């Protein structure tokens, strides 16, 4: 296959993934719609006493309803997995379409494509062990929306990486950032569900069928506990190593770095909050959301708000404009000026 064919394959992969995720969403919709009016009798709370016959199922609705919903739920998971496969092909195609072949995260379009893939993959990997089937519709719905936005607004044709990006430290750094982003995003979703569930007193509908708030809280914690060391590794170890090689100093307080640091500190605060009386539970969940906001602001916002970031996805025109500004007749030390202009050889990320 040549590069153009790989690129086409990638685009078809995205389209196919979108369609299959949509079908998965429909399957989940069928499942939840069937359950909509059936009131929920609380099952024995998950995690209750071992000896006390834990895991007794909720009083089953009519036999056929339960069968139908179960089938729909299984179909949903199956379709999600098929969608993830197409999603993966789309990623592979992006990497193979570039010359030389490379990792598929050269720009925001590809980063989003990879990040959403991680969200789905993490969900699929943990759904059985942690009994997360209730999370299916939300995950698929979320990923579908983000993919749609990605294709509509962020799409870019395949291009090779600039030289500064050709470093395996960078590959590791970005893999870590993407995996952590996926985990934190799932954690944010479960934190929102936790906050909603803790407020809600209804006994029908989606919220009512979610597990206990304590379970949601724990799932959320696990997602964050999984993401935090990876984020630490990506942002505080491999990031600086790469920055040292490429920019000659390992920490520059570049806006992208500042926000990665802020994100890290907020998540550290989240972990602390869970161990502090009065902050456990609701406040910790709010902190998790603040962390997610910082995370996503760093990814999207900084590129639009900051012009000093060496990480910015600068294009020629932007560089030109800023340089013209810089040669305005102010008495400046030459060296600074040069540093800035030479910084015009921006890595893209």
């Amino acid at each position, binding site marked *: 296959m040549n590069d153009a064919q790989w690129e086409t394959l990638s685009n078809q992969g995205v389209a196919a993934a979108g369609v299959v995720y949509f079908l998965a969403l429909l399957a989940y919709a069928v499942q939840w719609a069937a359950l909509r009016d059936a009131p929920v009798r609380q099952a024995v709370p998950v995690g209750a006493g071992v000896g006390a016959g834990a895991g007794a199922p909720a009083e089953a609705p009519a036999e056929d309803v339960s069968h139908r919903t179960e089938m729909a739920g299984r179909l949903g998971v199956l379709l999600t997995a098929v969608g993830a496969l197409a999603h993966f092909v789309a990623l592979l195609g992006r990497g193979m379409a570039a010359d030389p072949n490379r990792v598929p995260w050269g720009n925001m379009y590809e980063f989003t494509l990879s990040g959403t893939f991680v969200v789905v993959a993490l969900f699929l990997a943990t759904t059985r062990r942690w009994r997360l089937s209730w999370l299916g519709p939300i995950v698929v719905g979320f990923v579908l929306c983000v993919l749609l936005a990605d294709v509509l607004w962020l799409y870019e044709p395949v291009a090779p990486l600039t030289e500064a990006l050709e470093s395996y430290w960078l590959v590791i750094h970005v893999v870590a950032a993407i995996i952590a982003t996926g985990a934190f995003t799932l954690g944010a979703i479960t934190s929102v569900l936790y906050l909603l569930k803790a407020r809600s007193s209804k006994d029908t509908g989606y919220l009512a069928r979610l597990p206990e708030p304590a379970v949601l809280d724990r799932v959320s914690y696990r997602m964050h506990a999984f993401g935090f060391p990876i984020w630490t590794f990506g942002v505080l170890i491999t990031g600086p190593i790469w920055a040292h090689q490429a920019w000659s100093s390992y920490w520059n307080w570049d806006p992208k770095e500042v*926000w990665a640091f802020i994100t890290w500190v907020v998540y550290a605060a989240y972990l602390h909050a869970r161990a502090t009386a009065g902050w456990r539970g609701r406040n910790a969940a709010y902190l998790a959301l603040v962390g997610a906001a910082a995370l996503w602001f760093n990814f999207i916002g900084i590129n639009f708000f900051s012009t000093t970031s060496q990480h910015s996805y600068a294009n020629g025109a932007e560089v030109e404009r800023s340089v013209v500004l810089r040669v305005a007749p102010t008495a400046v030390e030459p060296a600074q000026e040069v540093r800035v202009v030479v910084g015009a050889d921006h890595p893209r990320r």
Partner: protein
Amino acid sequence: MTDLQPDLRQRPSDDRQATPLPMDLTARELARWSWRQLTSMRTALVLLLLLALAAIPGSVIPQEDIDSLKVSQWRDDHPRLAPIWDRLDLFSVYGSVWFSAIYILLMISLVGCIVPRLLVYARALRAKPPKAPRNLSRLPESTSYETDEAPEVVLARAAAVIRKRRFRVDWTAGASDSVAAERGHLREAGNLLFHLAVIVVLVGVAVGSLFGYKGGVIMFVGKDYGFSNNLTQYDDFAPGSLFDESVMEPFSFTIDSFDVDWITDPDSRRVGMARKFVSHLDYRTEPGAADQQYDLKVNHPLSIGGTDVFLIGHGYAPVITIRDGDGNVAQSGPTVFLPTNAQTFESFGVVKAPDAQPTQIGLEGTFYPTFAMGRDADGRLTMPSSAFGNALDPLVSLFAYTGDVGLDDGSSASVYVLDKAKTTQVMKSDGQPFRMDLRPGDTVTLPDGLGSVTFEGLQRWNKIQISRTPGKLVALAGVVLALLGLLGSLFVRPRRVWVRARRQDDGSTLVEVARLDRSSGGDPETGRDELADIVAALQQHPREDREARA
């Protein structure tokens, strides 16, 4: 942290919060109270949030250390706000008093938090697992069964079974009716390691910023130009506050040649862009040492001792000679032109001849490595531009100025900027600005007997960044340790198991087994499984024991 306390909900740090502040504290009590407040978990939490908050302005407002040019522009644009921002240190947030105050408080809090926990931990390591609570069945994870075995037999087996699961077990035959076991001390060790490592990282970073330096130099390519590592040779130099010049390693180098690999494949989307830059360096680690070669590339710095040399940019330097009205050479040599377009290397530059007679001469203009005329949608010629970054058809287009070009009065004018305040532009007789378009070898005579300008040829320059960051390996070791500690702290699950066996009135033995998970993310399912496994192992054995006896 709370390893000695069985109840997760009551951490010592939380208890401290509950201590009210009586009005009649003695000074000593007050100091102690403040210390407790400072080292409490809640304060750490608030300080962390404050740190995150305090970092934000630096990402929005231009920073002096990062982009001082932007700062001066910002000052010009906001004359009212700038003094206020200055007073608040908002142009150097990360070195400001208030930012430092937050992280120093955090560090003090951290030390105050770790040291006692280290002591507690050291004691906990040697301590025996806590005795079984009186009522095991009240614990959330517990179960019981009856058997006709003697309690001692059950307990002995329990001790063996649990020990095999790598718990620390406390049981002496005959001394008690229960076995106590504990596992997962590494969690607290990991947590302590993590927090200690944060301090190590900070020390490493501090050493680097106090004793290190970072400097840059623009060097022309060629054997005629060289750099030796001392202060006078740098264009810009940013030392740490405790930097000592004597640590500078006495190396020197020249840039033998510089290669750029341009993408010429017309099918490539990025045709015309550069793929690889390589500076072929000739360097000596000290005067008199052997000559060595190194290919300096982006992402591949050269390390000499503790100093790193980086290639961070490149560009063109047209060699321009200005002859003045008297026919004397007033200025000659390569002049650095700064790229204004990272892809086509269209560059902007200034040539000054302050010694020219009868009047000083300044030139300002654009260099096009591959000159081309742009075309608009209708195919009409529009602005000149550069089609490629490599010099296929170099052309420099200049305007001339006379008057005070600003170098002879000693003011610190930039060599990259022509201050036109005291100059007049050279005009043609028709009143249009006089413009020269020169290709290599071309000479143009300036009007009014001012002199002439010759474009002799092209030279290249490299921007070299040189930095010495002592302590960077300390910082790296710190983060790596922090990560290891973090993994222990997040994923090791400390837990306790108790087994109690008591003879009941009817002669049977009641065996109670309980488990207590002490981690934040404890998984009820694995907990349940572990408990079930233990119970199964306890009940399974009788058969084997009997078979063994038989």
